[in-house]
């Protein structure tokens, strides 16, 4: 591989300082004009809000950012992290060369890191891939991706893993972030992603946040709420949370509830809606059906305890069966005095569901009286029960008031939950019952954490079960459609769902996964129960590659580290929480030998001949119609018929196709900007544009329509909310006034097609009979409250909740390298109630042990400050590599979404002697 570049190639790619700086969107106010700054339109690197930014460059370096006044998302403002988008590129320890563990001049897993060439890096990476693939087949290799992948990177990774390697072991960190939201969207509406948009903030009357500390996690949306509250006296904010946080500071009502009891509160609210006659009967009759599913679905834990630490076993046993608590018996309408052992018989079939009657639905709600729920859900033992009851009634008043518009927002408090899908569905339950869904100013809205959790992870489909545009690998029609669009032989795509990100870690520990490529994420810090996974990574026979911009904790356990380009050093696109797709131009060059992730994917694909990956392949457990059990068929004959030779590479088949090579570089849309993927790949075509257009082919005409690539780069465009039909974006989906896919005259048309034909039954289960179709309708689910798998007890006596802080992004690898952000919150603190600290002999600033059944760490105590936790609960942010809280957390997941519950496990706290 030659990486030498000619001057001509550099010039063609726009790589001279003379060219950089000529073009770009002109800005009206240019106080820095004298400094010869060039301002371009771009997007913030951080959360799912997707704030528009203006980015200034001078002499090939980013020198400043500011909020984009033209962006409807943030109107010129940014949070503290957003303003740091320039500085995040310039930490002194940027990775600029590949680093490989070596001893005696050769790769050695026990060696130290040495700088190597990209050629040597890819040589070893490929040799190790082949070793794992020969031993285990396509399931022995995996890629962990990201909700921070650009749309094009995620699409390329999906093509390589699913279309090239015929493995479905591609899963993003977004699994930890909003997988529960996805399953709930699919089950409720038959199609993914929200009906509403951020405009609802200014149009609504009441905002209710549930497990969403917007003041810290989505500060610019919180700014819009506070702005509206100050403008309109009747505007209300209600904050439901397990501890008092910054969002409560502007709230009219704060409700602190006990972890996991959110499901009980929703059922109380639904019961009130019914009892008070607040059901919007016309809306429900026209647009909704009622549904239920099984109750004993387990907790997404490992099925066996072969590799468990001794203390873990009692919790793992709950994956098989539980004994109902007194409250659980009451909630199920059972005798609370009797002992009820519930086998978790639907652990593997948690997603099945069926239609029920409105009467059955009401029967399910009956146990959730105010007395029962208030006693169960009160989160602050120091709050009088009557005061808590009064708050629940006030909350019910808001939801029941037909005259008020209302939006419910949630983030990780719902999604990171062993019943995350259920609690998402309960939000829709209430909004559908009251007719407050898919109309301007009203709706249940799932906020995403990452900048492209929607745009990439979900829409592109970088999950182990997904293909683009909501399609799945399990559906034969979806596989065939994908193979046709990708011009691949029939039966290329593996019909067996791959491993989700937590399962990949378990596979690593079991020796079932021996080659792993981590891109744009830091999973060894971010996956719960980390002691198992760092041990597996470092001590077992496997090969771990981490592509990143800085040395992260995951880099420390890697065998090979690849230096990546950062956001503004490449072309890309993100999709935010409100379906807004935003594309940006590269404005500066990556440092040293850092390369774009897209270049890395495409370059690595050159090292695969199709006869290596498209012969017959073993896939343990594969069972699908048309496939031999446990096998993928050879494709080599069909490939020849498509004109491919055995020596054709995956690069040619997947990326440098005839159609893609026709999308030429240079391109006028570049407006003189560089393209490092083009330069380092020595290309005469424009891979980011070609792949975007190819990907858009999946969604156009199918309700996910994206605009043409060039449209997003127009100077008057600040992203567009899909579906974009006839050049017009869609602010409210399913509403026939705004969404051209909604049937005209329907008012509301929940047109999503998935899971819209079901058997009838009652709360106990489905009944024999023909399934019933209900096109155009959404489901109102009854979902019961249950206890989580681990709650505080005599030995581990406190709840542990984890999360973020405003100043640090995710695992802190970018923001902790920004001096003012690091100085603001330099380490993760252990937030405790003063009395809990006192009884353990601890005071503010002292060192404490935080210990669970799975591991222990040290942290310094904070009492008060931005979080006021109730007695019995502690909060520790997870950004800090030095306070490795995921050694303590529990890897229980929602059984359907496979998303980990990072919000609750049991710990004991003691003073460090």
């Amino acid at each position, binding site marked *: 591989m030659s990486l030498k570049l000619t001057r001509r190639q550099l010039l063609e790619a726009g790589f001279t300082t003379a060219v950089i700086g000529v073009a770009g969107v002109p800005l009206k106010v240019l*106080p820095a004009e004298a400094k010869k700054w060039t301002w371009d339109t771009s997007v913030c690197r951080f959360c799912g809000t997707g704030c528009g930014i203006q980015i*200034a460059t001078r002499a090939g370096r980013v*020198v400043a*950012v*500011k909020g984009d006044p033209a962006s409807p998302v943030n*109107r*010129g*403002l*940014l*949070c*503290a992290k957003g*303003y740091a988008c*320039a500085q995040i*590129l*310039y930490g*002194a320890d940027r990775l600029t060369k590949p680093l490989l563990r070596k001893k005696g001049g050769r790769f050695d897993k026990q060696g*130290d*890191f*040495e700088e190597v060439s990209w050629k040597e890096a890819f040589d070893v990476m490929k040799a190790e891939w082949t070793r794992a693939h020969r031993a285990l087949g396509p399931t022995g290799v995996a890629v962990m991706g990201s909700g921070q992948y650009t749309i094009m990177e995620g699409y390329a990774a999906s093509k390589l893993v699913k279309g090239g390697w015929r493995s479905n072991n591609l899963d993003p960190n977004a699994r930890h972030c909003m997988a529960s939201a996805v399953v709930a969207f699919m089950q409720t509406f038959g199609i993914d992603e929200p009906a509403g948009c951020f405009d609802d903030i200014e149009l609504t009357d009441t905002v209710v946040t549930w497990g969403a500390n917007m*003041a810290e996690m989505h*500060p*610019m949306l*919180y*700014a*819009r709420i*506070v*702005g509206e*509250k*100050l403008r309109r006296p009747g505007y209300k904010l209600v904050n439901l949370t397990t501890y008092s946080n*910054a969002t409560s*500071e*502007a709230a009219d009502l704060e409700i602190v509830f006990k972890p996991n009891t959110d499901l009980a509160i929703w059922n109380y609210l639904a019961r009130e809606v019914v009892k008070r006659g607040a059901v919007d009967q016309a809306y429900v009759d026209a647009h909704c059906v009622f549904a239920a599913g099984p109750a004993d679905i387990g907790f997404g834990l490992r099925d066996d305890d072969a590799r468990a630490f001794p203390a873990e076993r009692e919790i793992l046993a709950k994956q098989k069966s539980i004994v109902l608590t007194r409250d659980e018996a009451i909630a199920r309408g059972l005798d609370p005095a009797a002992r009820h052992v519930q086998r978790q018989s639907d652990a593997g079939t948690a997603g099945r569901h069926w239609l029920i009657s409105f009467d059955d639905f009401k029967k399910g709600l009956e146990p959730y009286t105010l007395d029962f729920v208030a006693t169960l859900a009160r989160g602050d033992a120091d709050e009088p029960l009557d005061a808590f009851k009064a708050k629940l009634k006030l909350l019910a008043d808001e939801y029941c008031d037909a005259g008020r518009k209302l939006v419910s927002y949630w983030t990780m408090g719902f999604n990171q939950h062993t019943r995350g899908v259920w609690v998402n569905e309960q939000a829709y339950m209430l909004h559908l019952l009251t007719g407050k869904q898919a109309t301007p100013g009203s709706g249940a809205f799932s906020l995403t954490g990452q900048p492209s959790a929607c745009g990439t992870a979900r829409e592109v489909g970088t999950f182990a079960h997904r293909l683009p545009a909501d399609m799945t690998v399990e559906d034969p029609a979806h596989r065939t459609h994908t193979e046709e669009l990708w011009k691949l032989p029939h039966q290329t795509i593996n019909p067996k769902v791959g491993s989700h990100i937590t399962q990949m870690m378990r596979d690593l520990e079991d020796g079932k996964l021996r080659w792993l490529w981590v891109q744009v994420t830091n999973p*060894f810090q971010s996956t719960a129960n980390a002691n198992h996974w*760092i*041990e597996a990574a*470092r001590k077992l026979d496997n090969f771990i590659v981490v592509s990143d911009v800085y*040395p*992260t*904790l995951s*880099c*420390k*356990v890697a065998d090979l580290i690849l230096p990546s380009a950062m956001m503004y050093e490449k072309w890309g696109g993100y999709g935010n929480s409100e379906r807004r797709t935003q594309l940006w131009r590269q404005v500066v060059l990556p440092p040293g030998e850092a390369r774009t992730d897209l270049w890395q994917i495409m370059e690595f694909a050159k090292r695969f001949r199709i006869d290596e990956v498209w012969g017959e392949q073993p896939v343990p457990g594969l069972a699908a119609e048309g496939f031999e059990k446990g096998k993928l068929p050879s494709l080599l004959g069909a490939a020849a018929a498509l004109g491919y030779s055995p020596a054709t590479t995956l690069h040619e088949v997947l990326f440098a196709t005839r159609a893609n090579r026709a999308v030429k570089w240079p391109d006028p849309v570049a407006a003189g900007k560089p393209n490092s993927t083009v330069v380092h790949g020595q290309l005469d075509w424009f891979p980011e544009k070609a792949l975007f257009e190819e990907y858009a082919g999946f969604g156009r005409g199918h309700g996910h329509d994206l605009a043409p690539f060039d449209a997003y780069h127009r100077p008057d465009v600040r992203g567009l909310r899909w579906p974009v039909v006839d050049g017009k974006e869609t602010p409210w989906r399913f509403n026939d006034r705004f969404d051209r896919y909604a049937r005209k005259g329907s008012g509301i048309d929940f047109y999503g097609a998935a899971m819209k034909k079901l058997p009838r039954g009652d709360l106990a289960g489905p009944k024999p009979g023909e399934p019933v179709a209900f096109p155009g309708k959404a489901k109102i689910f009854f979902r019961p409250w249950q206890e989580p798998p681990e709650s505080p007890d005599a030995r581990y006596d406190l709840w542990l909740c984890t999360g973020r802080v405003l100043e640090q992004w995710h695992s802190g690898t970018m923001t*902790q*390298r920004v*001096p*003012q952000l*690091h*100085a*603001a919150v*330099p*380490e993760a603190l252990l937030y405790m109630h003063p009395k809990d600290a006192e009884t353990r002999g601890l005071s503010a*600033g002292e060192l404490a042990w935080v210990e669970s059944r799975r591991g*222990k*760490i*040290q942290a310094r105590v904070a009492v008060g400050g931005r979080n006021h936790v109730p007695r019995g609960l502690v909060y520790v942010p997870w950004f*800090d*590599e*030095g306070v*490795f809280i995921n050694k303590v957390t529990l890897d229980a997941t929602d059984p359907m979404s496979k998303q980990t519950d990072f919000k609750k496990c049991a710990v004991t706290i003691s003073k*460090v002697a």
Partner: protein
Amino acid sequence: MRHLIQVLSFVALLAVASTSRAAPTARAAAPVARPIARPIADRELGLSRTSVFEIPSPPAYHAEESAPGDRPLPKRVNAEAPPVVPHAVADFLPITTTQNMCVDCHVVAGPKQKGEPTPVPASHFVDQRHAPGKAGAKVAGARWVCISCHVTRTDAPPAVGSTFRP
């Protein structure tokens, strides 16, 4: 050579530790940018500088304790970036819809006078969403929660150096 670099880095860190209370965010105190030595053990990578198997004791940092006006203002990143809050804030928080002690002090006529609060700039009186281009009488609602953008500070020195040059 590698040992020399490590010794120098250590000295730099000591210097940071001893001067950090005086100038927590001063660029001069940043550890020297160090290219990755070859070969390098995994424990030397990253922010924690420990093995992933160890359990570090996190250092003790202290929130800024000075009263407003008592200490010189830290250098701003640039004119586009919101300045850091230089003084202690514990007594001035929380900001609610009816109480904002930041605004109480900082809404003063400019220009900035030595020893007086930094005036809230004119930009903050424009509601970009509802009345773009028009200066209002009050701080725009979307800018009400000052600490969303203006971070507070502790005595923690930078975790690694920065080559950012505005």
